């Protein structure tokens, strides 16, 4: 099962704008605008590689979300978007 982790997390420049966040990515020169959950995805993947299921669980606990069958799908799309932007990378599970 794929794990995900942030690529160069420490190089990101994150600014808090009253609960909304800008993330400057020096490598690409792009600036991303994230809400709190978008930022938490990056933070959680910056701490250690996490699977989609693990990430959904962490987010649900952090934001005290009720179970929602569509949530993993939404998070999967977010991961794909972050990957396309070069913010995160897919890592294979070690044996």
């Amino acid at each position: 099962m794929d794990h995900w982790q942030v690529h160069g997390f420490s190089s990101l420049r994150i600014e808090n704008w009253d609960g909304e966040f800008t993330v400057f990515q020096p490598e690409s020169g792009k600036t991303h605008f994230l809400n709190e959950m978008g930022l938490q995805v990056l933070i959680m993947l910056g701490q250690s590689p996490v699977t989609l299921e693990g990430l959904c669980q962490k987010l649900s606990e952090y934001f005290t979300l009720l179970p929602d069958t569509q949530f993993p799908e939404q998070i999967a799309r977010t991961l794909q978007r972050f990957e396309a932007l070069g913010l995160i990378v897919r890592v294979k599970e070690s044996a």
Partner: protein
Amino acid sequence: MSEEKIQGQTGQIITGEQVAAAPQPARRRLLKSTVAIPVIMTLHSGAALARSSNLVGAVDAGNAHQVDGKYVCVNGATPVENGSSTYDLGEPPVATLSLEDSSENCLNNGGILISSAAYTSLSGKGVFLPGL
């Protein structure tokens, strides 16, 4: 770093490592806002924006520019991002145009279809169909 401190840092630059230690802030706000999905918007670099006049959007066959009943196909364009329908022709714009009998002939060979407006814009920048 405390939760309160993170919340109060409007406008202050902090590193990813510092933020990683932060937490618990958004729970109440998120529950209030009911926006329980991640939101991502991206502003491209200044250099990319400067080239924006050489960006073209791919259109479907119904909106594609045609010459003498044939589709104008743009070959050699690079999407600005994976999966994007916006293509960057570079600075100066470089692309090879061809006329195709069907839209599939263009799309199946990696080309894109463009609108009449986009074609006019490209023509004004020196990108023409061969022979025109």
